[in-house]
């Protein structure tokens, strides 16, 4: 469903993503892990057409995002890490605006918007201006907008930021159902390794723009040194986080 081939992105002399290749299957929740500045968000922005790669290509459902951006974007629902929205619209008006961009029919759009507002527990606030929403509510509204047009792929950057435990549980269930029941694909980046372990069928760990490990949970555990070692150990070992204890030596918090 998602094929990334030899993707490279440079900003001047700085190489944010280097020769990255991935293949994500339909019905899969794929975790994209890495420390801050590793190249996760850059990769995801290229996947959804917000950035153009220096070289390499991304194919979504067989459509090259660089060559057929409009058709490819119809298949994608994107949830960025920071929910910047049109603050002077109400939640429902915002969803109808997004439905208009995706050329949805009126009845379908209105029905779907109301359905998603209820699902994300925003029904009571649907007539309120977005500027009065909390961060978590805006995040949930962004997710509703991403699912509005029945995408086949959801690309989500840090899904759990700003969500309360109830909201987080809801999102996890929605993502799992989206993949298991609808055959959709979720490509998510997260710093919360527990979320990755709980949700993802496969993960890739990126560091300094390169994939340093990937596979399903069993393979990851094996790479980490056995069943007892977890994703965190591997993550820290591969991304240099193991030095944390040494860094803290002698430092009083």
């Amino acid at each position: 469903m998602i094929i990334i081939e030899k993707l490279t992105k440079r900003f001047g002399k700085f190489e944010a993503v280097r020769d990255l290749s991935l293949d994500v299957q339909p019905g899969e929740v794929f975790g994209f892990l890495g420390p801050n500045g590793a190249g996760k968000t850059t990769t995801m922005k290229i996947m959804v057409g917000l950035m153009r790669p220096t070289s390499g290509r991304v194919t979504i459902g067989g459509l090259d995002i660089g060559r057929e951006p409009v058709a490819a974007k119809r298949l994608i629902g994107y949830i960025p890490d920071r929910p910047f929205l049109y603050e002077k619209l109400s939640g429902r008006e915002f969803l109808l605006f997004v439905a208009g961009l995706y050329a949805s029919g009126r009845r379908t759009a209105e029905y779907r918007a109301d359905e998603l507002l209820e699902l994300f527990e925003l029904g009571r606030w649907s007539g309120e201006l977005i500027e009065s929403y909390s961060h978590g509510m805006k995040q949930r509204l962004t997710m509703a907008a991403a699912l509005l047009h029945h995408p086949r792929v959801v690309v989500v950057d840090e899904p759990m930021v700003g969500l309360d435990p109830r909201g987080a549980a809801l999102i996890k269930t929605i993502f799992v159902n989206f993949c298991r029941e609808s055959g959709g694909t979720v490509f998510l980046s997260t710093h919360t390794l527990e979320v990755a372990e709980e949700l993802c069928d496969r993960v890739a760990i990126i560091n300094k723009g390169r994939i340093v490990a990937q596979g399903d949970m069993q393979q990851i555990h094996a790479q980490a040194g056995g069943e007892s070692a977890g994703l965190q150990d591997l993550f820290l070992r591969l991304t240099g986080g193991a030095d944390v204890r040494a860094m803290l030596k002698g430092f009083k918090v």
Partner: protein
Amino acid sequence: MAALRVFLLLLWPKVRGMRKSRTFRLVFFGALGLACTVGIYMVSAWFLGRCLEVELIGALIPRKLMSLVLLVLLSILLISTTISSFAVFFMSEDLGLLMAAPVQVGPLYFARLLEMTLHSSWMVVFFGLPVFVAYGTVYNASFSFYLAVLLLFPGLILIPACAGAVIATVLTRIFSARRSRDLLVFLVVVGFVFLYLLMRAMKPEQLLDADSFGSMMDFLNIFRAPETSFLPTRWMTDALFPLLLGESQRMFLPAAAIWTTAAALMALSAWICTLMFRGSFARAQEGRVRSMPKLNGLPRRERLLGSWLDRLALVRPGCTGSLLSKDTRVFLRDTSQWLQLLLLGALAAVYIMNFIYLRAADFSWFTLYTVNHVLMGLVVSGIAVRFVFPAVSLEGRAFWIVRTAPVTLAEFLHAKLLIHLAPLAGLAMLLSIMSCAVIGVPLVFGVLSVALNLALALAVCSLGVGLGAVFPRFTAENPAKIPTGLGGITFMTTSLSFVFLFISASVYPSYVLYRVPERPDVPIGHPGWFWFSLAALLLLAVACALIPMWIGRRRLEERED
């Protein structure tokens, strides 16, 4: 000492931020500013020189003029410092962090006061000082005059700044920052529109014609009208004018009045603001958002509009309906944006009134018809820089929604063009028809005028959307600031150049049409010129409509933020 350290520490990030400005911008704005300053100085010096040559009243005019200039500057300062105070004292993003830190309110108040004063007064000082230099040159003033200007100006500026800070603090305590600012902007705009119409109704052009007054005494009385002695502008005039005339001993009392008032107001405002600041800040946080009643709770008319806009959002094909629906809602809900419609209304009224006055004078209809096109070009450019140029930037940080939707940037820009062209062309057509009716032009020329103005509106609108995409400011917190940067100036320069070329190209074919029926036996120029002018008109309009949109699309596609 500790308070001074905190005060300097709070200013440090602002100074650092200023140093990050790009060299190109600094050079561009520096050159433009220098040109403006020199221009203002030369015009002022020329005008003052002419005034002094006028018999009887020549010596009175410069003093009255200085007083008027100062009054205008002070009024502008009071308005801008008050509006800035809401943003700087209560709505700034970094206040949350500062209020959570163990920072005393006193140094914070003085740091913000200094920031706000510099921010809102630099332009007034920049454009005001050349006028005073011109006074010094014309009167051959000594060094003491220039020194007095430099010493007294900061005191004069501090007076409205302190008043603005107090007004903002008190209003925020009562109404919350956002609502107070909206209320104040509303009052300022209504006041401005009223004064504008009043000024126009007073026909100031009559001042140029002393014969229109009943007697010489009526005319002289305008300049002798007493001014209240409690105004700081009066003190400033009383302090500076004696220096121009070499009577330096008379300047000390008014100069002392300025600085003692400024010092007293600073102390008073610091006391009031530090006392009320925490309460006002808390109130500002409560009022940061505005809730909207449920759809069913709205009055029938608004419900209908809402329902109609919902339908519009889902009109297919393309994204024009969705963007129009969204832009209309955002426009109507943002006070700072829809209030500008009042200014537009006043502008339209004054525009038509001008032609009623000019028609009464002894001008041929063809002259007024040509002047009408020039003025229309200026009006359309002025409206476009306010409403069309910011169209792309107003998408703000939410632009990612359009970028990730199955909509090409060409579709997006064309939708923006259509949305803004309809009202702009409508207004141009309306003003064109009304002014032609007032001037009394023949029907053929009326139709020609409408056609020319529609083409002009299309070209200027495309230029606005296109250059708005070349110079987008997605992170601008205040929409009113979007046209004030490099992009806005580039747009105005390009737009006015286009208007000049377009109207120049239209004069010749119009003149031919005007003369031929009257004197068909006399050939006017070469026949090829007529067709050449028409071709130039068409080419200019098409080029201006297409090229900026193309460049704007390319620039937006290249953006990666």
